[in-house]
């Protein structure tokens, strides 16, 4: 491929290369893994966003006389102990998990990207010091750190976003820094330095555009971890507050009746699993398409 491009530089297919967005979409369509993964994620987002249109029932209103019903024409997946429709709650249940997870992931990835690029660009003692501090944070198990933060500051979406950001930023920093270190010694960054540009413009103009694929993969990867973590928190009773429809909470509430009403537990589990699998497949497909080395991210 490269041989031809070098030999025939005057006739590259212009239309194909002129639109980066179009090219990205075309690349994505080539990978079945990425398509399936992104499809699942988009499906979940759509269901969560359009929940009020998909079902007319209320996800929170109690109906004691309809409690613990099995699947029927009226309640496809039955009802739970308080008589709420399981399907309605599953459809609404994505809202909390998705909103909090995506907010938390965005914060962690954004902060991690800025820190990772900056430390790679600055290098030297600052780099060493920051990385050691982050190593120390990395040594704390995420769920433990989260429980401590939530216990001290009280549960609430903002607190959880903050806690997840703190817990996951170091890992993002490591990955982004490794990618940025590959770009920093290149001549176009050197040229910007020779112009005497400040760190932030160099970071935004020269480094970030060339590692954006790493950041995208990292986002998908990290999001799947965060979704699981936040659902675990809800399951443990530190996340969403009870009437809120949330998958983790639903699993926790209904698991006592699992033998009688398997669907009340299984449905949120399936919803959660498909979302996590979708995110993982997206990360996998994207990293393979863009040749991102994922070995760093095993941590």
């Amino acid at each position, binding site marked *: 491929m490269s*041989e031809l491009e070098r030999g025939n530089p005057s006739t590259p297919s212009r239309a194909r*290369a002129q639109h980066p967005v179009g090219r990205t979409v075309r690349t994505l369509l080539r990978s079945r893994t990425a398509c399936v993964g992104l499809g699942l994620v988009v499906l979940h987002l759509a269901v969560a966003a359009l929940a009020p249109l998909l079902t007319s029932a209320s996800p929170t209103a109690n109906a004691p006389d309809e409690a613990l019903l099995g699947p029927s024409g009226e309640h496809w997946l039955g009802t739970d102990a308080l008589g709420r429709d399981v399907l309605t709650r599953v459809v609404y249940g994505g809202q909390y998990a998705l909103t909090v997870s995506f907010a938390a992931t965005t914060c962690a990835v954004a902060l991690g990207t800025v820190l990772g690029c900056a430390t790679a660009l600055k290098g030297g003692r600052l780099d060493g010091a920051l990385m050691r501090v982050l190593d120390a944070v990395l040594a704390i198990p995420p769920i433990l750190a989260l429980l401590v933060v939530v216990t001290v500051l009280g549960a609430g979406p903002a607190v959880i976003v903050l806690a997840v950001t703190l817990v996951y930023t170091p890992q993002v920093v490591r990955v982004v820094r490794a990618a940025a270190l590959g770009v920093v010694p290149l001549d176009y960054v050197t040229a910007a*330095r020779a112009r005497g540009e400040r760190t932030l413009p160099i970071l935004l103009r020269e480094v970030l555009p060339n590692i954006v694929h790493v950041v995208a993969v990292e986002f998908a990867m990290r999001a799947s971890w965060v979704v699981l973590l936040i659902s675990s928190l809800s399951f443990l009773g530190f996340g969403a507050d009870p009437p809120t429809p949330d998958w983790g909470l639903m699993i926790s509430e209904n698991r006592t009746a699992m033998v009688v009403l398997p669907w009340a537990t299984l449905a949120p589990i399936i919803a959660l699993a498909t979302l996590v699998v979708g995110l993982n497949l997206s990360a996998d497909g994207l990293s393979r398409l863009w040749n991102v080395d994922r070995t760093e991210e095993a941590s």
Partner: protein
Amino acid sequence: MNTESNDNTGSTDPLVRVENLSVAYTSEGHDVPVVRGVSFEVETGRTLAVVGESGSGKSTVAATLLAHLRHGSRITSGRVELAGQDLFGLDRAGVRRLRAHDVALVGQNAGHSLTPSMRVGAQIEESLLPQRLPRRERRAQVLTLAEKVGLPDPERLLRRHPHQLSGGQQQRVAIAMALAARPRVLVLDEPTTALDVVTQARILDLVAGLSRELGLTSILVSHDLGVVSRMADEVLVMRDGAVVEQGRAQQVLTAPEHPYTRLLLASVPRLEDRGLAEVDQDGTRTVRPRTPVPEDAPDAVSLRDVTVDHGSTRAVDGVTLRLRRGEVLALVGESGSGKSTLAWSLAGLHAPSGGHMLLHGGTEGDLAATARRRPLDVRRRVQLVFQNADTSLNPRRIVREAVRRPLRFFGGRSRRDADRDARTLLSDVALDPDLSGRLPGQLSGGQRQRVGIARALAGDPQVVVADEVTTALDVSVQASVLALLERLREERDLAFVFISHDLAVVRGIADRVAVLRHGRVVEEGPVEAVFSGPNHPYTRSLIDAVLDPSDPSDTGGHGPARSQRPPDPPSDTGDDPVWHDLGGGHRIRRWETGPETARDT
């Protein structure tokens, strides 16, 4: 070693035969031909050189001799035979046998082809494994091989890791690995392109000597006609995947028939040129004599006792030089001589640890500070052009943005003004302004280098530091980039610091030359005086290492032989404080004439 099989095939049959070979790869459903109908034969013990510019398909042809095709490529017609055997009819085991016993490859960059985490001795030993020798014999064999390829102190060196060796030593290890298989055919894919001239000369000597001694048949792939003339018995010139000319080296290189070969040959800078050669499409070359820099030209930059340190090692040690307006000062030396470090210091990327570095002329200022500490107006007056056009442009930014950024950064222009000026600059560097919407990946190497030059000009500099700007380019492109630099120098009265290890290029473009060794200047003077001598022995060795393609060493059969080997550079460190002044600004550092010769490749 393989005499039996040679006898079987008969002495008249060529060892390697490629018949009407065509290779194509599939890109988005279309077949794109890479090699079109190439045929050649190589007899046992001969060296065939495949010559061409990048993208000519020469490496693809060479790789087919190892039964290798790049991923996605396939053979659309023809066959490749080694001793009568079709290489692409082999099964997996056959291919493995072929690569283990019959054909060996020496690649371009040994630094990349050696495993970084393995000691080099173990790596050579690994390629001996197919011979199933007992361990002790294998070890002995490794040592013999290391001695054969001229690795100094092999016992100790074999225990090192690749990064602890110099580029020349790495290439020697790669050659030892290739020879370990006792191959019949050696494929040399640009074996010396990544090395500097002096090391290149030694490696070529080594390969020539070895193939004569072992009776190897070699296929040499190179874009460097000097190397080809040094090594080849026969030459095959390729362009866009097809053969344009083939024949005996002597004939092709001295009396080329095809205009393309003539063009290629004419584009190679020669030591005897007294200026830049202009080459027409039909291959006639006219040397344009240099307009001398007026005696009273004011200084542009002056350096006094400049030292630059990398940690505890001193990369540049007490350099005193001056550069006048409209002048091209060439810094020459081997890799590691400190020439690039000095250039980067000038450009403000690495602060010198001592001495004075001053900018004169329209804007005056102290250059002994890093770029960010320099006032904006001083910073813009010294600009850098990089060696590697592939990495000097941000792959995600279109050409216009690359040139516009410094215009806006230094000139504070509005976006529209900067866009207009960027177009002007692009046409100044002889680039179609319509290319300004392209990404660097869509440009050729020469076009990218022009964008790099336009970006440097955007700061409106007084001094341009050009760091090996033509090294990575094909000869014909190199000639046009050099001509561009020359034109810009005249039009804009620019002063250039031109860094190169190729003295033939320096001869054409420079007004004055400073030879660096171990961070010190050992000789300095006007280009005429330096090239007519007398010289410091180190300068001499650099000049002698230049390979001239019109001087083929076809000795009619068993490989090339050249009587005058480039002398080894003197071993002294060049710290003698006494200078011989030869007048006219030509001065040479005094040297010790020791009997010992340095073998530090």
